[in-house]
């Protein structure tokens, strides 16, 4: 359709860029993206950095500001080594979910690459950050940089006041629990005190109304009452502490008996950062897919309108195909499913289903097939899904065939894998749900919860690990992590592995057995 649009002058020629060209290219790209896809974005702030600065940014988990910790130094050395050896190229861009959206461009990029990156990050990622429900619900884009600034300053002050070693010990322990430091589900809103009073009155009313003097005359069971009372005490205790609690860092921050206020604040900082990254980890395929789809569409539209030269387009296509390269499982280059490739293919597939559906598509996606409005469907998907639900809903049999996906079942003590399903009529459903489950963040980090603690007695902290599908924890790192928890809690900590299905106790570890 846009092929008939009047051809404008080229946006740029040659590989050199300057700020004027960048700015002009951005304006055109933004206009095209809004026109073609109807994107809705935060204002953009572009920052040009050198490759060393990109390495710096890598080592502090991609944030422009970060407190100091040795582990970042370690990651930096590692990344630097890979980069210097040529084992890994650097990303062309980094984008920060903030308002305004900050995009880092590498100075080494050619102009064609800068245009590609602008479409990818400044529009694609930006739109996703602004519109996806997870980001809207869980992160405050406008405050994250301010918060990081505070965190950096706070930790630096703590280091001055309490010494590097003391701060490092807390940070080490907190980092160990980062995965268990997020709220996975939204908390119920706190009742206002007025509502609480009302509820109390209602309960009393109900008791009065249902009072029957006869109950008093019933004989009490002699031994059962004792057990009952203990059980009740436990229940009450759990209720007071809001147990079970899945966010270990939160629990320790609020309830540990030995931490100083600054130590609690450090736990809180680590927890807030973990929470900030939580939606990003749930939307890898969608986020990258969205950005890739946007740059793919916008760059092609620009080329069709004659705004990009053929040479530049070739360069863009080459980079694009590198990014969405997906080798087969038996290829030596295979290192898992490429989220860029999967995301882009699924979104292109949605467009295909909406515009040129086959009979099979009409069967599988009756709402969508032939609807024509692929933009609307995509915008809706970007706004309202995470990876798991997106795949569960939109992965089509056609795509499964195209990728020749198969499902492998892997039981630890068997000597071989079993091929459970392949890309055929019987396999589609299983492959789809199997892939979706892989992206289900609820299933992937280890599910560990605080189940009980007796604050008045032994102060023994009990954790419970829900063992899914018999997948246990690695001994060494588990013990080391328990030691970290004990350091934060100050008293005995034990971890009990309970099979999620049968409820049977599989193992039990206590910090007492793990020499400190």
């Amino acid at each position, binding site marked *: 359709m846009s092929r008939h649009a009047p051809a404008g002058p080229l946006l740029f020629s040659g590989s050199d860029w300057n700020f004027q060209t960048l700015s002009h290219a951005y304006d055109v790209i933004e206009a095209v993206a809004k026109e073609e896809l109807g994107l809705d974005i935060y204002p953009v702030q572009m*920052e040009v950095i050198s490759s*060393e600065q990109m390495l710096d940014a890598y080592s502090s988990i991609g944030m422009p500001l970060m407190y100091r910790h040795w582990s970042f*130094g370690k990651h930096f050395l590692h990344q630097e080594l890979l980069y210097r050896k040529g084992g890994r190229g650097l990303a062309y861009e980094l984008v920060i979910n903030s308002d305004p959206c900050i995009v880092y461009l590498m100075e080494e990029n050619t102009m064609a690459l800068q245009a590609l990156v602008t479409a990818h990050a400044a529009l694609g990622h930006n739109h996703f950050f602004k519109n996806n429900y997870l980001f809207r619900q869980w992160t405050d884009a406008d405050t994250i940089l301010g918060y990081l600034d505070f965190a950096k300053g706070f930790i630096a002050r703590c280091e001055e006041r309490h010494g590097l070693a003391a701060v490092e010990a807390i940070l*080490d322990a907190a980092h160990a629990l980062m995965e268990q430091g997020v709220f996975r589900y939204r908390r119920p809103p706190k009742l206002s005190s007025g509502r609480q009073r009302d509820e109390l009155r209602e309960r009393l009313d109900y008791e009065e109304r249902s009072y029957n003097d006869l109950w008093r005359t019933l004989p009490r069971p002699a031994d059962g009452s004792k057990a009952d009372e203990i059980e009740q005490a436990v229940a009450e205790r759990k209720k007071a502490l809001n147990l079970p609690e899945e966010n270990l860092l939160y629990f320790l921050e609020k309830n540990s008996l030995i931490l100083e206020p600054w130590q609690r604040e450090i736990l809180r900082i680590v927890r807030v950062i973990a929470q900030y990254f939580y939606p990003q980890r749930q939307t890898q395929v969608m986020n990258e897919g969205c950005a890739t789809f946007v740059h793919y569409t916008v760059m092609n539209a620009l080329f069709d309108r004659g705004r990009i030269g053929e040479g530049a387009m070739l360069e863009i296509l080459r980079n694009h195909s590198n990014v969405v390269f997906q080798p087969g499982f*038996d290829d030596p280059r295979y290192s898992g499913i490429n989220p860029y490739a999967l995301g882009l293919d699924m979104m292109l597939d949605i467009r295909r289903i909406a515009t040129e559906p086959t009979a099979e598509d009409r069967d599988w996606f009756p709402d969508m097939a032939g609807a024509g409005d692929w933009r609307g469907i995509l915008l809706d998907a970007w706004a309202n899904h995470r990876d798991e639900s997106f795949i569960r809903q939109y992965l089509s049999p056609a795509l499964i065939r195209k990728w020749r996906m198969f499902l492998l079942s892997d039981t630890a003590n068997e000597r071989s894998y*079993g091929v459970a*399903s392949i890309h055929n009529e019987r396999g589609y459903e299983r492959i789809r749900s199997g892939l979706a489950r892989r992206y289900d963040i609820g299933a992937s980090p280890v599910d560990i919860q605080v189940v009980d603690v007796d604050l008045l007695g032994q102060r023994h902290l009990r954790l419970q690990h829900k063992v899914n599908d018999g997948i246990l924890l690695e001994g060494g790192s588990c013990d080391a992590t328990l030691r970290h928890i004990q350091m934060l809690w100050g008293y005995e900590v034990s971890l009990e592995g309970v099979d999620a299905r049968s409820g049977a106790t599989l193992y039990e570890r206590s910090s007492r057995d793990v020499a400190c």
Partner: protein
Amino acid sequence: MPIFIDRRLNPKDKSLGNRQRFLRRVRAELKRAIQEQIRSGRIADADREHAVSLPASGTSEPHFREAKDSGRREHVLPGNRHFIAGDRVPKPGEAAGTGTSPGMEDSEDDFRFVLSREEVLDLFFEDLELPDMVKLTLKEILAYKPRRAGYSVSGSPTNISVARTMRNSHGRRIALGRPKREEIEAILRELARLEADEGKAPDKALRIGALRAELDRLERRRRIIAFVDPVDIRFNRFETLPQPNANAVMFCLMDVSGSMGEREKDLAKRFFVLLHLFLKRRYERTDLVFIRHTHTAQEVDEETFFHSPQSGGTVVSTALEEMKRIVARRYPSREWNIYAAQASDGDNLAADSEHCLKLLRSDIMPLCQYFAYVEIIDERESEIFGATDNGTSLWRAYREVKQSWPNFDMTRIAKAADIYPVFRQLFARQPAQRRG
């Protein structure tokens, strides 16, 4: 229109603090690695960048992690070629678990990275107990000094040479005939006199007109020919010259008879490395000569010097003779600063010590800038000998040399921290020489 910020000029080493924290954390391990490398490497390479590899232990970041060898999982993989449902695929070997085993995290254990020269030296100095000033001077790379090197037509305004500039300006003004202020003033005076004159000289008006024209011409010329023109300006030119350095040769003498074990050799090596560092900083070119001896002496390469054992008696003077011979042949003392470092466990043939004494006094000490002798002794012995002047015959002979030659130094060392005192004089002399 987005906001653009150019961050390329921001400071680069944003993660330097993190690097330092990491190095501190793995300090013990790094130190071991560096000592190991210095022990096995060449003396001259001690102060280079070193690549070290660290095992993952001590730098691991534990967290709850799923054990790979338990439970049941399902993987979805792309690129099926010929499998159908129900096929069995053998698992790859335990070790080579790549390829078909998905979810492999790239492990960061046992990775190598490069330590800078500074960091290497810090680790090397750690248990030598050097005073901080000495550490600083050793780490300092060759110093450059600005030196006047004539004049140039470009430079920074602070370097303008006023005298030279004014001289050029003066010459140009003379050559181009810039009117002087006195000439103009003379005409002005003349004009004033004429105008004040009441007389009716016939050519008065004419005269005034001519004078005014002349005044105009002169003023215009003054404006055209500037007082100081850009072409006059000269700048003082400076060149950065390295501090004058000469050549130095360092003789390493060591007893390699059976009584010198690994510990002794290691201490000796550190002693040599330290002296070499010092020389390297002061001299542009530093040669190393290795002479080992038992009852005979020979010049060898570094590898043989430290690592190949030899058996035999101990006659120290043979090494001194060899050194004397090499100096005479290759390092004339006019052109070379000669330094010698000798390490021994103090054993010597009784009659030979006298001979050594004679050799040192008459031949070697006059040639040498500095002669350092270390006697490597047992930790237990150090308590007995430490304070007294008793000792082996060699020790007693050398003590006499020390009395008459200020550039001779000797000490007994039992541990690394004892090495530095030998050099104290060498380093202490440094500032005095600089001032001179």
